[in-house]
């Protein structure tokens, strides 16, 4: 893919990924054929800050996990009062990187497809 398009994507979307993922995201996009640019542009990423806010407000109901797509863990969290109150606190620190990892996976799926 064009270097200018990759730069544009990186400028717009770098906040959705972890620092250590950025280099491989750039590489993945560079190797991607041009006709997939449309796919990449329409991807909806989860905003890690927004997920953190959800986690702070409704973390003990597991809604943060449901939101990023971890349905199984979300249900587990819901059924145990947020993991007996401990997991919901632990998740305040884990959920942002979990969301970023989800975004990375999403991009990976498009590049493989």
């Amino acid at each position, binding site marked *: 893919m064009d270097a200018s398009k990759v730069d544009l994507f990186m400028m717009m979307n770098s906040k959705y990924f972890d620092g250590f993922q950025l280099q491989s995201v750039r590489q993945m996009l560079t190797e991607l054929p041009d006709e997939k640019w449309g796919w990449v542009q329409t991807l909806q990423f989860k905003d890690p800050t927004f997920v953190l806010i959800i986690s702070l407000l409704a973390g003990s109901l597991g809604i943060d996990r449901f939101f990023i797509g*971890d349905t*199984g*863990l979300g249900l587990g969290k819901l059924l145990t009062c947020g993991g*007996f*109150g401990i997991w919901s606190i632990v998740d305040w620190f884990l959920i942002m990187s979990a969301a970023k990892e989800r975004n990375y996976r999403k991009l990976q799926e498009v590049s493989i497809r």
Partner: protein
Amino acid sequence: MTRKRVYFFVGVLCLVGYIRLIGHVSCGWSHVVTGCLFHRVTGVPCPSCGSTRSVLFLLKGDFLSALHANPLGYVVFLPMVVFPLWILFDLICGKDGFWRLYQSAEAVLRIKYVWMVVLVLIVTNWIWNIYKYT
């Protein structure tokens, strides 16, 4: 979510659940630890408040009181017995049966009608919970 992380999360969750149960049975924690962050912050019980009481009733064989404390106690009780054993079995024998169950359960839960039914059941239970405990 990787396989290792799911095993870790579920294993730790079960372990904390057992510590909590043992604390309740032998040390009388019920007056000390409420555990539920949601209940402490808002004063309103969460959908699964009362499931510890329910599991305790189930251990005594009092099925009706368990149902009245919180029907989710039944839903929590079975995984707490089966999942740790299954995880141990998988780890020792190097298999991934639990991981496949987790993935297929997630796939089923993503079907629109399934999660809508689950949501309605949980919200109904929550309303009953609020009615009972406030």
